[in-house]
């Protein structure tokens, strides 16, 4: 039996009251619930407050570069598909610096889960606008208010047929835990976008702001493989913000497409001198 305690208890560098605490709690609960032992789990994270998450977890981790969670996570899964691989990033990391990788990870569809802590602001660099900041939000750089349109990651993911698209809320650990369980179980790229209040720098999108708006989508509201309906739903943002699973598409998975991975993980493959000699003969 795997328990939440197996995932450790570390001192964090997050601000008191940060939404990240609840995300960490939900992730531990989900992994324990799934019976995944820490040595079977690999978390690849980027840089930012979200990127620190695996530092506070007892499991394998690769805390890489800002914006670059998905390339190493995808490759890690290809190298050893027996691992449960998660990518953890913030909104700046995944939608700004690493936006291109998100698009191509969706196209590839590796069986990994990407968990995005979206606080609509840059926390680690102390309060600049992020790709999801609301128009008009004033920051140290955007003195007249943000001009750029906010990115809609849910709509983007659905438009590109991401295999599993969902939104959770750091203010509802129970719901987020259930979402993470489903996302990790799903075979294919699962996006879990988490609304996460930044208590220090984002004075606009607070716990109160979110709590007044979020609601859980009802099961069976529409068939989850209906991309048009899902896309329509993804556009709902404002007074009411839907939480839950938006879209599921059972697309072929990247690892399955590599015949060489059928028998054993890539890391167990051995070199073949005999075949090299056959190739050498071809040059003679």
């Amino acid at each position, binding site marked *: 039996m795997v328990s939440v305690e197996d995932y450790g208890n570390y001192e964090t560098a997050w601000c008191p009251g940060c939404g990240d605490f609840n995300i960490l709690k939900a992730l531990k609960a989900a992994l324990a619930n799934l019976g995944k032992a*820490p*040595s*079977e789990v*690999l978390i*690849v994270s980027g*840089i930012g407050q979200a990127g*620190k998450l*695996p*530092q506070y977890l*007892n*499991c*394998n*981790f*690769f*805390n*890489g*570069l800002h914006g*670059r969670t*998905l*390339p*190493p*996570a*995808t*490759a*890690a899964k*290809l*190298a*050893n598909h*027996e*691992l449960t691989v998660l990518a953890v990033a913030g909104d700046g990391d995944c939608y700004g610096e690493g936006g*291109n*990788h998100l*698009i*191509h990870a969706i196209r590839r569809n590796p069986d990994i889960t990407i968990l995005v802590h979206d606080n609509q602001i840059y926390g680690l660099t102390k309060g600049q606008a992020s790709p999801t900041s609301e128009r008009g939000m004033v920051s140290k750089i955007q003195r007249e208010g943000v001009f750029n349109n906010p990115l809609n990651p849910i709509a983007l993911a659905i438009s590109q047929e991401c295999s599993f698209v969902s939104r959770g809320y750091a203010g509802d650990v129970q719901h987020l835990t259930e979402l993470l369980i489903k996302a990790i179980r799903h075979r294919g790229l699962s996006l879990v976008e988490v609304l996460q209040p930044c208590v220090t720098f984002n004075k606009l999108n607070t716990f109160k702001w979110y709590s007044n708006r979020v609601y859980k989508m009802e099961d069976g509201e529409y068939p989850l493989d209906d991309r048009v309906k899902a896309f329509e739903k993804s556009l709902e943002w404002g007074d009411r913000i839907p939480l839950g699973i938006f879209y599921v598409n059972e697309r072929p998975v990247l690892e399955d497409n*590599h*015949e*060489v*991975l059928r028998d054993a993980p*890539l*890391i167990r*493959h*051995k*070199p*073949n*001198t005999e*075949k*090299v*000699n056959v*190739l*050498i003969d071809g*040059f*003679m």
Partner: protein
Amino acid sequence: MNLDLTIKIGGAAGQGLDTMGSVLSKSLLKSGFYVFSTQYYLSRIRGGHNTFQIRISSSELAAMGEDVDILIALDRASIDRHLGEMSDGVVIVDKDVVELDKEHDSIFHVPLLKIAKDVGGNKIYTNTVAAGAVIGLLCLSLDPLNEVLTAIFRKKGQEIIDSNHKAAKAGYDHVKENYPHGCKFNVSKPDAQEKRMLIAGNEAAGLGALAAGVQFLSAYPMTPSTGVLNYVAGHAGEFGVVVEQAEDEIAALNMAVGASFTGARSMVTTAGGGFSLMVEALGLAGITETPVVIFLAQRPGPATGLPTMTEQGDLLFALHAAQGEFPRCILAPGTPDDCFYMMAEAFNIAEKYQIPVFVMSDQYLADSLFTCKRFDTSKITVERHLLSDQELRTKHGDYKRYKFTPGGISPRALPGQEGILVCADSDEHDEFGRIDESQENRIRMTDKRMKKLELLATEMKPPTIYGPQEAKITLIGWGSTYGPLAEAVDILTKEGHSANLVHFNHIYPMPAESTQKALAKSKKKICVENNYTGQLARLLLTEAGIEVTDKVLRYDGLPFTPLSIIEALREKEVI
């Protein structure tokens, strides 16, 4: 008599120069000659003026010649540009196709198109007719050419093979019946010797990677490195390799690092522009101590530069790329043999020391066809330096990925191995791999990483000395210039000079002691490099305290020829 002939095919892109050139090269190899072929092409798919140049000799060679003995002019530009390069040779031209203003003694009309249509019913046989004509001019047997044509067109069926054989024979016969000077090149078939390979640097590097047991390759295509990517991808299924075409080079190296962290032998292929995008991930490999091989095929920069030409301009870039300080290793093959064996060396060094290792080639080495002895796979070893489950259970109960050790190398385990956790961090970290920003830890971790370089330096091979161990004039070079430099030394020696070559394959960390020893007695140390600033010369000064006497530098996008080196030495009054 030592035979040394150069055949040049000139035409527009899209006229099939490449196929015809490699068919002829292969046939001449099979006839028993040493063959060296280079291509000159512009960055376009059709049009422009391209050439394919084949040099054949009865003794070893690894460089281009200067004079052309047989020119096959498929377009007018071939005449306008290359007639001046002719020795007392022959220009094969189809006057029905290529309009000429004036006659020239060397021009020999062969109605390639007409013959192609007559015997094959299609103009696509033109190049085969020309190849047959060349064999006729050289008075060699048609058998090797037919053998190569059979192999190339096997998949297209017997009818196509037969038509090609007929076309080759018709070209051959036309020369026999109409060429007025008979067998003027006086080519005798070389004595039977062991069979050799004809292979380009890129193919050899790809083959070397497969022999070294590469498991993961990620790349974004970029000339002149793409050949390696294509080669490995072409055999990925049978060798159990995963090849991933990345969305950009940033992703490519981050992927390779991620795959390697997880336990796959991983590499990337790229050129300078792509490597510029990989720089941050290079530092990531550095601080996370993740082994990775970076195959960097150089071309003239900066930015897009001259995409299809050659240069050795990225040595110091590779050495200094990325913020901060961390150990790395730079190898530079000089021939396809080196490319083949050095890939395994690169992987073994990368995994032993847990560092990024560069294999630096360039367009000249990447695309030229060299004659090599058969590669010997028994010389290849695959050394992974990984902890087994057994070792983990008995010796590493409390596993620390970055454990402090006397040599700085921490025993490497992989995520997924039972009972342990493997944590890596791009932040400065403690022995477990968790963030630690304390000064004390920073110093210990930096020392640990950098210490690995000291041990590696003792393993780096001394420079190769070609010619006498000591000489008055020493040419110094690195990587792909080996062939032209070795031949330049031969020419100097023949002219009565005391000359040798000190050539570097293992560049960084530089084997300082053996380098100093190799150059101790030279009166004139001349560094010859395909770049503007003399990057190896600078490295010799900083790493071995050696100041070169002079530099011969070339940065017009073309490789050195032996004679261009001799000429430069004369200009500089070295000789």
